[in-house]
């Protein structure tokens, strides 16, 4: 049968009857069984649900019915997306044993398109981290070098694709949590426009920043998946109501005539030399493909990290209040309800989550709101305005995705050192713009480097075109 690297060809061979969804599922499960004790990408497998869905797809194919673009494609979900009747933990002890009574909108859309959900992947607890080491259920390892981290927080979903367990997976990206692990694992990762993909059923970290997006081996597969999961959802009031332009039809339109700007503030201090070199080569490749490439300054991006580490914890402190031991998840009892809340939360949350809850509580507290949260929200406007100015002269922007290639497990024990991993990815979240990480060669250590294409609001079609051009160029790299 067709391998598990390409969703598009797998779906085509299932649709044509060359192979079956059941066989594809079995192949995926075999790949996981063979190696996931070592990689630990998955927290739980959803075998029963997967078998039912695969059987339904196969029955539809046999009956000659029209099946969706992801018919029979095994897919992994980050374990912060609700799946009815199956565990959804956010890699936290506090949600251990919880089986949501509903499905996230993306899960419904994937299954409607024929995808087969094989399991739930590991993440940094509540998506707070950049290495997938902050999981209550142990760290995930980078399949390309298991002494290294896969990045995070969607490290399990990145690793599941990189290890070829599944051709597609979903992650969530609040400050780089899809793009950075994609970069470290050598796969494609997409952070869509804020509001393009429904957040209903995505367990909130920072509501004004969170977006769900796909991981894939190819830009084309990522585009197919994006087109499936995006679009208006009445259950999410921040979902964009206008119809979105599909990205697949224009994928191969090339970059001829596009103006692409390299963000100078993201090309300096703190970024490893090999990463910078690959980013410059990517720019050259785009120029060779017919784009006009120049550098552009977006000065406020250097304040992105500071603003992000106020806004995201502030929203998280409120979003995570509900884990109080009353309605679901774990409880550590106490003599009265307040003590029970405190016992439950103190035992149920890991240190990074506690750190961010306290930081966010402080940033919102009376007397500090204006100085911290209020000011950070103004910085968002500033960054957004400066991007808008840059996009008057450029169609797309380019930068590294991660300051470095995959680092060793345990290498970054200081929180601030980990926070620096997101310096290039955070500005897109703050502005709500889409961006994509595309593998572009390797670093001095032989590990993958990703470059990031940034686009204005809702310009995913253009972004995927440039990403496709980079993917083509990367195929010829030394």
């Amino acid at each position, binding site marked *: 049968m067709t391998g598990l690297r390409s969703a598009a060809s797998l779906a085509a061979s299932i649709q044509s009857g060359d192979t079956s969804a059941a066989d594809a599922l079995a192949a995926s499960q075999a790949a996981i069984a063979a190696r996931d004790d070592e990689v630990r990408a998955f927290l739980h497998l959803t075998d029963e649900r997967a078998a039912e869905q695969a059987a339904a797809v196969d029955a539809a194919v046999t009956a000659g019915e029209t099946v969706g673009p992801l018919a029979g494609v095994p897919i992994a979900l980050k374990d912060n997306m*609700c799946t009815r009747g199956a565990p*959804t933990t956010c890699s936290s002890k506090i949600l251990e044993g919880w089986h949501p009574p509903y499905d996230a909108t993306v899960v419904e859309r994937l299954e409607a398109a024929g995808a087969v959900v094989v399991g739930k992947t590991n993440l940094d607890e509540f998506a707070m981290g950049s290495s997938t080491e902050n999981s209550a259920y142990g760290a995930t390892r980078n399949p390309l070098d298991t002494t290294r981290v896969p990045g995070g927080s969607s490290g399990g979903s990145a690793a599941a694709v990189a290890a070829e367990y599944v051709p597609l997976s979903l992650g969530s990206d609040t400050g780089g949590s899809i793009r950075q692990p994609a970069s470290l694992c050598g796969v494609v990762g997409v952070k869509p426009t804020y509001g393009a993909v429904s*957040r209903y059923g995505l367990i909130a970290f920072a509501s004004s920043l969170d977006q769900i997006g796909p991981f894939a081996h190819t830009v084309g597969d990522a585009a197919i998946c994006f087109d499936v999961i995006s679009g208006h959802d009445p259950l999410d009031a921040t979902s964009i109501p206008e119809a979105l332009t599909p990205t697949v039809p224009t994928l191969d339109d090339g970059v001829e005539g596009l103006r692409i700007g390299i963000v100078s503030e993201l090309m300096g201090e703190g970024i490893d030399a090999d990463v910078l070199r690959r980013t410059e080569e990517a720019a050259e490749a785009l120029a060779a493909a017919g784009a006009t490439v120049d550098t552009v300054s977006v000065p406020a991006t250097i304040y992105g990290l500071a603003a992000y580490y106020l806004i995201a914890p502030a929203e998280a402190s409120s979003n995570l209040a509900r884990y109080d031991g009353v309605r679901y998840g774990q409880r550590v009892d106490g003599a009265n309800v307040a003590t029970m809340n405190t016992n439950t939360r103190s035992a149920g949350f890991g240190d990074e989550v506690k750190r961010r809850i306290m930081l966010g509580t402080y940033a*919102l507290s009376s007397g500090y709101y204006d100085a911290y949260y209020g000011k950070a929200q103004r910085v968002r406007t500033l960054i957004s305005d400066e991007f808008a100015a840059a996009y008057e002269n450029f169609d797309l922007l380019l930068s590294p995705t991660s300051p470095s290639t995959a680092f060793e497990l345990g290498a970054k024990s200081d929180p601030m050192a980990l926070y620096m991993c997101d310096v290039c990815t955070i500005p897109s979240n703050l502005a709500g713009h889409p961006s994509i990480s595309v593998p572009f060669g390797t670093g001095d250590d032989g590990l993958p480097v990703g470059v990031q294409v940034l686009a204005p609001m809702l310009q995913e079609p253009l972004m995927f075109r440039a990403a496709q051009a980079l993917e083509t160029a990367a195929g010829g790299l030394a």
Partner: protein
Amino acid sequence: MSDSANGTGADMSAVPEGWEMVIGLEVHVELATNTKLFCGCANQFGDEPNTNICPVCLGLPGSLPVVNAQAVEYAMTLGRALGCSVEPGIFARKNYFYPDMPKDYQISQYEEPTNENGSIRLPDGRVIGIERAHIEEDTGKSTHLGGGGRIHDATATLVDYNRAGVPLVEVVSRPDMHDAEAARLYVSELRDILLATGVSDARMEEGSMRVDANVSVRPTGSDELRTRCEIKNINSLRSLGRAINYEARRHVDLWTNGEAPRQETRHWDEDGGRTTSGRSKEDAEDYRYFACPDLPPLSPSDADIAAIDAAMPALPAARRAALAEAVGVEPAAVMLAVERGLDGLALDAIAAGADGATVLKHVDQNLHEGAGALTADGLAALVTMESDGALSATQVKTVLAEMVASGGDPASIAGSMGFEAMDTGELDGLLDQLIVDNPDEWGRFVEGDRKVQGFFVGQIMKATQGKADGKVVNQLMTQRAQG
């Protein structure tokens, strides 16, 4: 409402000479929507516990709120009915832990409420300012086990989330009220507005209208605002008056003794007739308000507001003014008629030629249960027969009851009941006989003792089985005595 004019006596309400009460009210009103504020669960009082719940109103991880269009429309309708300006509204999160609040934050409008700066004109003409009327979600309901239901002695708490997420508007008055009666009239008026607009069923006993009173006192003539206490758990208009008076007197006593009240929430104890200390406001929580990132702002257009205004039904104050003018009395005199929703009937009957005062008398005294099958034309015809002396007061009452029960016109009903006006000659004969039989009494009447007049009227009524018109008998007696 019917108990607005009685209840706590004026003597009980007064704080001692030299002191003035300062009262502001916060009224939570449950909106009469089909569904909750942020999800499609039924907004239904009295259902089995936890049967109207979903991921959103349970605050399950991953769920998101979406605002109910009808709740916003009701909130704006109430705002316009209260004379507020309708402004762009932003939903904020008020963060605090409590088990009946599923997300451990309440979504409420904070700095930018939908409605600002309105007022309520009381039937007696006083105007009470309204600071804001904002939209927020209700909490679930806690039941405290053990300790006789008292929260401090409870052994466990059970939580039902059917009410969690029910849409509320909180109407916040300015501290413009200075006696308990004003507070009672204010709440009564607000309730009438809610019922007239259909925004809420406004049942205090079911909790769909909940009143918290902020009470302080100050020396008369001063404009200072002293420490106030917020009184909760007020379940009726009668309690409202009692609680305010109790609390105001408590403050006066403290100040008089050289002490000061503590700023706190207090609970009205209906059985004990007193307020008891609750949570101190000094250790108030830091609610960490911020705009809810899941909810885009509301920004009603001028056209939206104009549509609300165009659909606005006649409000109690305007209805009172109209009826009062038609009858020729002060608006306060027609409160009952408007509360009963019988002002339209009364106006139509008056327009059809009936005497206003008589129409109002029947509406107030004889239509406690509503108008039933009674039509305005029928009422007008009946009142005209009464004014012409064609029927006695007792007969009118009987005919009216039949018209309420089954409709019909008064002349034929009176006819079928055998009610016909007695002719004066028949009454003259009866009176002659009575004078002969009761010479002493008649003598006293002639000398000016009007007390015996009732004796004669009563005897004639008895003899005619109520068919005689008392007014006509009086006239005959007076003529005879003078003659």
